[in-house]
């Protein structure tokens, strides 16, 4: 996709073994991550295939002792971004990079619809729809922060953006998830 390709090296048992090991140990995580980003299996398959081909080509650039998972998540993230750019013609940040905290003073109202009050089955279904409604950037940061539990610093490295951007995307994504769940809750009740 996109960037100039590194040529595939002559057959090397070591290189093939590296790829084999990577797919065995991290294939499930990479494919699940790709599915969580794309929300569909066909795109997740394409994304994972291209990601492991990049792992194969660039296997020498992996530094032993560092997190392979972070590396392949970064590859998947970049490929996903490239693919979105190709599909849209141009890929624009869908939310402003404004990270100004909102001042909150006075009495905090009790949560109208606490998440924990929702029945698990209902919530799962709503969460899936809410996740699908997020922008790709917002979905990515939610997956990395809440599901994979990476730190802001690690997410910034994987996504190739600043920590401020990670914060901003996460805050807006969670606010949107909450709005989506509560809106659906009201329409049902």
């Amino acid at each position, binding site marked *: 996709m996109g960037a100039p390709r590194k040529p595939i090296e002559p057959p090397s048992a070591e290189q093939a073994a590296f790829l084999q090991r990577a797919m065995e140990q991290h294939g499930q995580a990479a494919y*699940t991550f790709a599915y969580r980003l794309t929300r569909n299996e066909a795109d997740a398959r394409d994304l994972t295939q291209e990601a492991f081909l990049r792992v194969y080509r660039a296997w020498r650039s992996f530094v032993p002792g560092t997190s392979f998972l972070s590396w392949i998540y970064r590859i998947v993230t970049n490929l996903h971004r490239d693919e979105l750019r190709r599909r849209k013609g141009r890929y624009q940040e869908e939310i402003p990079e404004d990270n100004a905290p909102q001042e909150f003073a006075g009495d905090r109202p009790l949560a109208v619809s606490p998440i*924990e009050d929702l029945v698990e089955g209902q919530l799962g279904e709503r969460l899936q729809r809410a996740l699908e409604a997020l922008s790709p950037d917002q979905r990515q940061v939610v997956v990395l922060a809440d599901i994979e539990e990476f730190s802001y610093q690690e997410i910034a490295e994987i996504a190739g953006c600043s920590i401020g951007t990670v914060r901003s995307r996460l805050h807006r994504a969670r606010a949107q998830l909450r709005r989506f769940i509560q809106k659906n809750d009201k329409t049902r009740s």
Partner: protein
Amino acid sequence: MNHINQEQLVDYLHRGLAPEDDAMVHAHLDACAPCRLAYQDEASLSEALRANARNEIRELPSGVVASIWAAIAAARRRESLADRLLTWLRPAVLVPAMAVVVLALLLVPRFAQSPPSQTIDASYYLQDHAALGSTMPFADSDQVPEALENDDEGQTSVVAVMPAVMMADVAP
């Protein structure tokens, strides 16, 4: 006392605050029930996301693994073909080959285009005359070979003079 804003709660939940802010939020949550409730709701959202994600875990399909190996094999085949072509294009082979081609281009037209000569060498007439003269010394005194009639002036004079010289030699 101001409550903790939503962003700070989210950052606290994700361990994204500076140590002093983290300590401040921690102390505030201990003392403030509404903020604690708001924090628990944020934590519930994260837990719900994780619970939902556990249902989404997927094994890497075997078809994807097979496609990856097939793509690598295909790329290797393409590359080995390109390598073979590049072997022939390396300077040690390419420079002499180009030299031969250039030489051929220079020389072939020269040979191919040189037209067959339409002129008759003057020695032919001398030999012809000598042969004629040896058999019939006086027969050619006023004869000019047919081909010579269309030839240039200089050649005519050479051949035309000869019979006179020979006649002088045999004159009594």
